């Protein structure tokens, strides 16, 4: 299956849905910092991979899929849940990329400049995640 990008999809999301994502994302970043200060970096580090935005994103996908079907005059049925489940499949693949990100930061942060390490690790997350996605499409 080919990957397509459509900027018009951004119009589907309402301003308060963007605000919710911003607030949840900011709150979990603050929370991760507070946990690290209180319990140390080994516990705080766990929360760097907390599924912060995932519940909000999956709910939005479910809602948008239902609205799309209803606008087309079709019965939505369980299409919303199926769309959210497919999103979760992608998130599972992305989480393997997240492991690659964490390993790379762990090994190289004390040896190289911070910006370069974070940029290279983010790229590693993307490459690993996309490679797993491509492999899953071929099987």
């Amino acid at each position, binding site marked *: *299956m080919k*990957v*397509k990008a*459509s*900027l018009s*999809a951004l119009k589907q999301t309402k301003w308060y849905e963007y605000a919710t*994502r911003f607030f949840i*994302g*900011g*709150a979990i*970043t*603050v929370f*991760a*910092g507070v946990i*690290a200060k209180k319990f140390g*970096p*080994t*516990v705080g*580090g*766990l929360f*760097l*991979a*907390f*599924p*912060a*935005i*995932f*519940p909000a*994103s*999956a*709910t939005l*996908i479910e809602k948008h899929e239902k609205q799309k079907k209803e606008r087309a005059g079709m019965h939505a049925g369980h299409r919303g*849940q*199926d*769309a*959210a*489940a*497919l*999103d*979760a*499949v*992608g*998130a*599972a*693949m*992305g*989480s393997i*990329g*997240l*492991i690659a*990100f*964490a*390993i790379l*930061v*762990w090994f190289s942060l*004390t040896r190289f400049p911070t910006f370069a390490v974070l940029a290279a690790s*983010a790229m590693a997350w993307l490459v690993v*995640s996309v490679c797993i*996605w491509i492999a*899953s499409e071929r099987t």
Partner: protein
Amino acid sequence: MREIFLRMVIGGSLVSAFAALGDIFKPKTFAGLFGAAPSVALATLALTVDTQGKLYAAIEARSMIGGALAFFVYSSCVCWLLFRYKWPALLVTLLLIPVWIVTSFGIWLAFRGETP
């Protein structure tokens, strides 16, 4: 206070940016990759290096491996429950947060004796 404000703004912006990328792409399995983007990690690690130093941030990154493994278990469970029972996405994703907590802390307990 300044640090909390910075964390809020940088974390919120990065999470929003990756979530918007997820909105743009199709198919849904590809868009889902961005649900596990290192947005919180990028914001936190950059600020942590600034305030606590590189070694502290590297220890956080090592622990993050456990959190990411727990994310894999969590998202796999979400996927299975949504396909199998067709419950509302919000209910399933929130109901399974304890799966992430138990898995990540289980991994942390198993490896807490290891040196960085």
